[in-house]
């Protein structure tokens, strides 16, 4: 049941000792990069000053902006001849950030993805269809390599082209897929359109949901629609990509691979480290990277560490599903709201369909939130009152959760813009 038994169930003391050794190595390696070399000299950081894991706090944070400012080679700790791959973040604002990998980096990354997939029960007998964009985005190649490492037949179907995806699943008996959660919901409507029941007419049994924060309710809905188990996957291109943290069969949080990453949770305002269990921004330090080691990288992702040990026996701690990103937080009338919070509430309400869109508007000094919600086809019984009740219920449920009264508009199923990539959930029309 373990891909790498020793690494996965290592006693905490041993794991932490290993982390310390690797942290010292990482500091040494990072010093060779133009960016960290100069920075360490300025603040007088030398590997000898790192004597405990807590000493990581002596190192400065690294932000996405630092990566941008020292683009492209400022963080490179090896000669360019050593590199075999580059990836670029899916960042939509500003200049994209690049991450370089040596052959060993790719090998380590591949091992983590294989470990993650194996953990959920994927084996060499599985047929894996990777419905993610191949290319600069890490979700495609990251999973591709991991699946091949396990030895599963891998179908690099890429993103989009829903009807062909379904055809491939049927033709080659796909058992496992990697898919963006919002696309999984959209794809289901295509299954209906072509009259194929994913539960009855395919052999799908495992799905890896990645590249997009989503709620537990959304996972449940996807599992129910398709009749498979869906596992949450976390990663970011700066930390390789997928395979940073992953759910085990207990589906209660994602094991973060601590032999490869040193984990901190900080208060995003004060930047102070927070104790286990408290929610804050996830900060990661690479422990195995050669090409481009990163120290205390601020992920912008909000989560908490689950302090309790997991029943699966793995000693690597778990993080909770990502609550949101510090940069996709909406501030409305002084209240902080994350799209995922709204998604979670909506998915709890029966009658709500598979897609929604949040529109923020300003009228005078007043900010308004309009939520366009698709109605579930089966829910409609031809009754206007039923729809009005649904709208009322959505407003009330959201009001009690986000403390703001949104204007809810019910729209026809399938009428909101569909995305075959990450779903666009928020349109902010507020102009200053």
């Amino acid at each position, binding site marked *: 049941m373990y891909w790498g038994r020793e690494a996965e169930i290592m006693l905490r003391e041993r794991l932490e000792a290993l982390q310390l050794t690797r942290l010292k190595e990482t500091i040494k390696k990072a010093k060779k990069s133009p960016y960290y070399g100069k920075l360490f000299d300025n603040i007088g950081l030398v590997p000898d000053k790192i004597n405990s894991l807590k000493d990581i706090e002596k190192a400065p944070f690294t932000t996405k902006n630092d990566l941008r400012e020292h683009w492209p080679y400022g963080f490179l700790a090896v000669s360019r001849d050593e590199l075999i791959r580059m990836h670029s973040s899916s960042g939509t604002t500003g200049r994209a950030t690049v991450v370089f990998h040596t052959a060993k980096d790719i090998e380590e990354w591949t091992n983590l993805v294989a470990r993650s997939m194996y953990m959920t029960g994927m084996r060499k007998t599985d047929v894996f269809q990777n419905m993610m964009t191949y290319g600069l985005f890490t979700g495609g190649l990251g999973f591709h390599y991991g699946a091949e490492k396990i030895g599963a037949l891998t179908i690099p179907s890429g993103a989009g082209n829903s009807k062909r995806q379904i055809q491939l699943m049927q033709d080659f008996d796909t058992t496992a897929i990697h898919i963006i959660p919002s696309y999984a919901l959209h794809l289901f409507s295509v299954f209906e359109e072509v009259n194929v029941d994913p539960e009855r007419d395919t052999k799908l049994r495992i799905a890896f949901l990645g590249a997009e924060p989503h709620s537990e309710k959304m996972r449940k809905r996807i599992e129910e629609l398709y009749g498979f188990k869906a596992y949450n996957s976390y990663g970011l291109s700066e930390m390789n990509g997928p395979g940073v943290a992953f759910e085990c069969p207990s589906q209660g949080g994602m094991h973060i691979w601590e032999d490869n990453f040193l984990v901190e949770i900080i208060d995003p305002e004060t930047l102070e480290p927070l104790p286990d269990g408290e929610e804050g921004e996830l900060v990661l330090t690479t422990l195995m990277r050669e090409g481009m080691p990163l120290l205390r990288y601020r992920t912008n992702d909000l989560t908490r560490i689950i302090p309790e040990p997991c029943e699966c026996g793995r000693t690597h701690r778990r993080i909770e599903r990502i609550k949101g990103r510090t940069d996709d937080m909406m501030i409305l009338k002084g209240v902080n709201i994350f799209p995922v919070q709204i998604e979670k509430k909506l998915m709890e309400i029966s009658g709500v369909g598979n897609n929604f869109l949040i529109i923020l508007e300003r009228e005078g000094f007043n900010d308004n939130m309009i939520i366009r919600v698709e*109605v579930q*086809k089966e829910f*409609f*019984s*031809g*009754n*206007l*009152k039923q*729809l*009005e009740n649904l*709208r009322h219920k959505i407003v009330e449920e959201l009001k009690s959760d986000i403390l703001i009264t949104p204007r809810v*508009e*019910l*729209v*026809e*199923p*399938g*009428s909101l813009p569909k995305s075959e990539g990450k779903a666009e959930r928020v349109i902010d029309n507020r102009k200053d």
Partner: protein
Amino acid sequence: MTAYQLSIFAENKPGRLAKITQLLANEKINIRATTISTSGDFGVINLIVDDPKQAHKVLSKEGLTVSLKEVIAVVIDDKPGGLDKLVQVLAGENINIENAYGFVTESWKNAIFVVEVDQLEKTREILKKKGFKTLDTESLSAIEPFHYLKY
């Protein structure tokens, strides 16, 4: 006697009804009566057509959210008090009308009153007992509009 009404969920914006009527026109489905009830930005379009099952199929296939609903189509007199006679009976039996609309079939003689009620079976029984004639889909579609007969 069972009559069916198509109810279609539609956003309240230009072109939604046109889309529906076009699809039905292409299928040669005849619309006998229609009402629209709205609630701000969305509403429900109710249609009585000559082939409700086929219409349901066509509209669903095009991705519309359609529900096929049983309604009661009652024949009433097209004269003062004609509707009152029916509605008094329903009121007397404590039956609530959720939605209703009518159309004339033979001027100054007959009209059809379509009612959606909360207690379908009970309403049917009562109407039968009180001597009202109700129509099923087939006879609804066979009705000739009054102007063909009279003009």
